[in-house]
């Protein structure tokens, strides 16, 4: 009896153990051989691609090298940056100006590299600000943010900054419909349907210099515009915007905006809009928005407030906008390299619809409509549909293209990327991501010419991927080799901020144009000091301008006396170096703003208002040379109304010799 009992226990234990080993293995181990070699970039060697990655709630843009995943730089865009002085120096303060005043932060979601003929041209990258609607342009010669334009009549600039194939326009679509700026916005929130409006902005980009200007806005029905992409090739002239909340809910959207079986993709014929604009059909309406431009010659940003914008009414001008039904709260709205296929990713849908540009055109020609939505024609779903990818995964979000007839879509809920063929709509491969991928990126994956060596998954959940750092973790990204049929995971790397969309481009298009330093002869900053002999301190009432130079390893002047409490002191520091990678920094004890980080040949200004008397040290914060630690000086602050004369020098203000020590 006892024996039987024992064998029964042993048997059940064995069964339990066997069941446990049936549990699926942790997918985190799914790295195949040769991965390290593929992602390895030897020390001192360059990566093959630049990967520009949106910073999400950091407001900045980070730049990684691929395939190594090395972080190359974080570019300050919408958030101030005390380490470089961006947003703190007098030269860069205007960049963060808005119609709401200076804002030190934003939420940066999407990026678009400038294109010519549908291919990346490596000149600029555009970035959106989601919270206070803006679009920024970063110059890829200097990796500096050189322009920021605010968008009126908008809120939650999410479907932005997607661009047309020759960078004719950068678009901005509002996620939060709101009452337009020229009417009284003091209305009940639940009057959404009557009083709110969804605005799409078309920002014209100067061909030569990249300068931005709002060409026109479309006033659309109040919904949540989500993402967009321009047509290309045959569909050039059209833009596609996904939208959700066609229920027009204003509260508990989680439920109330998930009721309808289909929301929309809005097709915009922007060539038609241009015609109407030319024909004078636009209405100028009063508003207020700010345009900030950084002048590379004067190294100074200027902020200009604009007071009107031209609006085209899409209900009156009938043939600009068309709605295409798209299953269940579409998110990504992506156009394949040929321009024929538009992929809508319904976040809550169990399939991926692929629309055909030709069929859409035919449907419009035949007026094959299922009715209208707030005065905009709704094309019949079947008439626009090319086909559906069945059971692709759960929670499709975004699609990029490999240029070989395949698409790769990210799936948030099933935490995977799925490769499928556009023609036959069959799934080819699926690979897990770690965890819950949001956006994904193939170099040139949204252009006419993808360079499909890799796909990168930017995930929303990190958990156990790296050493833990307390509750707050960086995000995780995975790099997959997609040169073969199977996607192979080759690298896992942490990313800063919260990456959303990203762009990647062959390094050859960028690296040779990268500026090494600014030529001092071309520095037209009004406060430049070209040479130590020109340094000076000038008092104008209670304003004191210090024209200071920095060169290894001293400031001129480095001893300043005659500053008084309550003065406004402007340190205009010019870095005289003319060599690669010799920045100087400038810090002032007790200054309540930030430091300056001054590139060779550049002038930067830090404003300081001393509040108490005493000796204030100043020093170089960037380890510039063997004598960096000696690169320091003093400012003497005297009481208000003191008659200590204004004195400044370097190397002359020596201690008095003590006569008693003489022999």
């Amino acid at each position, binding site marked *: 009896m006892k024996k039987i009992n024992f064998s029964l226990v042993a048997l059940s234990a064995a069964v339990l153990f066997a069941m446990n080993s049936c549990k699926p293995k942790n997918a985190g181990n799914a790295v195949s051989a040769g991965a390290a070699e593929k992602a390895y970039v030897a020390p001192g060697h360059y990566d093959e691609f630049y990967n520009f990655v949106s910073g999400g709630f950091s407001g900045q843009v980070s730049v990684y090298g691929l395939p190594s995943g090395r972080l190359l730089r974080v570019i300050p865009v919408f958030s101030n940056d005390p380490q470089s002085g961006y947003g703190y120096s007098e030269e860069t303060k205007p960049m963060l100006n808005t119609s709401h005043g200076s804002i030190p932060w934003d939420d940066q979601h999407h990026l678009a590299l400038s294109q010519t003929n549908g291919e990346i041209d490596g000149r600029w990258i555009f970035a959106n600000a989601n919270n206070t609607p803006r679009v920024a342009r970063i110059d890829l010669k200097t990796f500096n943010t050189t322009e920021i334009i605010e968008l009126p009549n908008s809120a939650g600039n999410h479907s932005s900054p997607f661009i047309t194939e020759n960078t004719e326009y950068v678009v901005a679509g509002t996620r939060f419909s709101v009452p337009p700026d020229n009417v009284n916005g003091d209305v009940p929130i639940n009057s959404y349907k009557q009083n709110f409006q969804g605005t799409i902005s078309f920002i014209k980009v100067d061909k030569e210099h990249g300068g931005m200007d709002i060409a026109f806005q479309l006033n659309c029905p109040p919904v949540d515009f989500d993402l967009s992409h321009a047509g290309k090739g045959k569909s050039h002239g059209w833009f596609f915007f996904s939208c959700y909340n066609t229920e027009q809910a204003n509260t508990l959207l989680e439920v109330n905006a998930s009721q309808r079986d289909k929301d929309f993709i809005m097709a915009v014929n922007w060539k038609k809009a241009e015609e109407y604009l030319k024909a004078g059909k636009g209405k100028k309406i009063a508003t207020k928005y700010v345009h900030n431009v950084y002048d590379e010659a004067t190294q100074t940003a200027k902020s200009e407030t604009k007071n009107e914008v031209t609006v085209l009414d899409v209900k009156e001008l009938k043939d600009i906008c068309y709605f295409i039904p798209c299953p269940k709260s579409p998110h990504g709205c992506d156009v394949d390299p040929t321009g024929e296929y538009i992929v809508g990713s319904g976040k809550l849908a169990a399939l991926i619809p692929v629309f055909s540009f030709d069929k859409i055109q035919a449907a419009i020609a035949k007026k094959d409509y299922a009715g209208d939505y707030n005065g905009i024609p709704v094309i019949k779903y079947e008439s626009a549909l090319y086909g559906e990818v069945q059971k692709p995964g759960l929670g499709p979000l975004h699609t990029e293209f490999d240029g070989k007839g395949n698409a790769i879509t990210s799936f948030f809920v099933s935490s995977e990327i799925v490769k499928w063929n556009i023609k036959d709509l069959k799934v080819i491969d699926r690979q897990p991501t770690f965890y819950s991928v949001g956006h994904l990126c193939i170099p040139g994956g949204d252009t006419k010419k993808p360079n499909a060596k890799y796909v990168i998954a930017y995930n929303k959940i990190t958990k156990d991927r790296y050493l833990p750092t307390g509750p707050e973790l960086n995000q995780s990204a995975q790099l997959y080799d997609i040169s073969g049929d199977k996607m192979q995971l080759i690298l896992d790397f942490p990313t800063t901020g919260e990456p959303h969309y990203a762009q990647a481009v062959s390094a050859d298009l960028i690296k040779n144009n990268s500026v090494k330093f600014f030529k001092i002869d071309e520095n037209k900053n009004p406060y430049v000091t070209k040479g130590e002999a020109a340094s000076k301190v000038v008092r104008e009432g209670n304003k004191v301008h210090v024209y200071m130079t920095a060169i*290894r390893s001293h400031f001129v002047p480095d001893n300043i006396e005659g500053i008084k409490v309550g003065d406004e002191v402007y340190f205009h520091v010019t870095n005289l*170096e*003319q*060599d690669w990678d010799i920045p100087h920094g400038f810090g002032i004890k007790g200054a309540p703003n930030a430091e300056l980080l001054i590139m060779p040949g550049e002038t930067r200004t830090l404003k300081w208002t001393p509040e108490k008397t005493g000796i204030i040290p100043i020093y170089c914060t960037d380890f510039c040379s*063997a004598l960096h630690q*000696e690169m320091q000086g003093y400012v003497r602050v005297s009481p208000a109304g003191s008659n200590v004369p204004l004195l400044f020098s370097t190397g002359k203000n020596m201690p008095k010799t003590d006569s008693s020590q003489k022999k």
Partner: protein
Amino acid sequence: MKNKLKPINRLLVLICGLGLIAVLFTPIWRIDLDAPQYPEGLSLNIHANGLRGSVDIVNGLNHYIGMQTLHNENFIEFTVLPYLIGFFAALFIIVAIINRRKFLNFAFLLFVLFGIVAMIDFWKWEYNYGHNLSPDAPIKVPGMAYQPPLIGFKQLLNFGAYSIPDIGGWIFIGVGVILMLCVFTEFKKAKQKL
């Protein structure tokens, strides 16, 4: 007649004269500098009329060890050198025109002398540049001088200095060698005739 140059030598002397004109427009000497922080390298290029290349960067670096900064206006050489080279260019062209062996020998001797004096001058400048250090220099290494090599390689603290003739210098040397051959063959020819 017997004093006349062989036609081939006459042509070579003419080429030498023209070659020296080219020297006026090419760098004569270069000092390449390499350091851990300068993987791309720095280069001082000596032209007949002045220094070019990474002069400002070198000046910026040298203040740590108290070396003087380099400025073209401090070198009488850069005023005189173009005239001297021009003079020799003209001299050889004239020798080719006059076509006399005696003139060739004279011109060659003068040229060699010029070469020697020039190299002595260069060495003296290098010595001065490397030894004449400011007493206030932040970095003083006892017994260390920073004289760049006249020709060849030398390690100076973190910098490796590599001094070699540049295009102009090689033309100059070539001119010397060709002239020597001319003088030699003319001498042999004259000896045979005796």
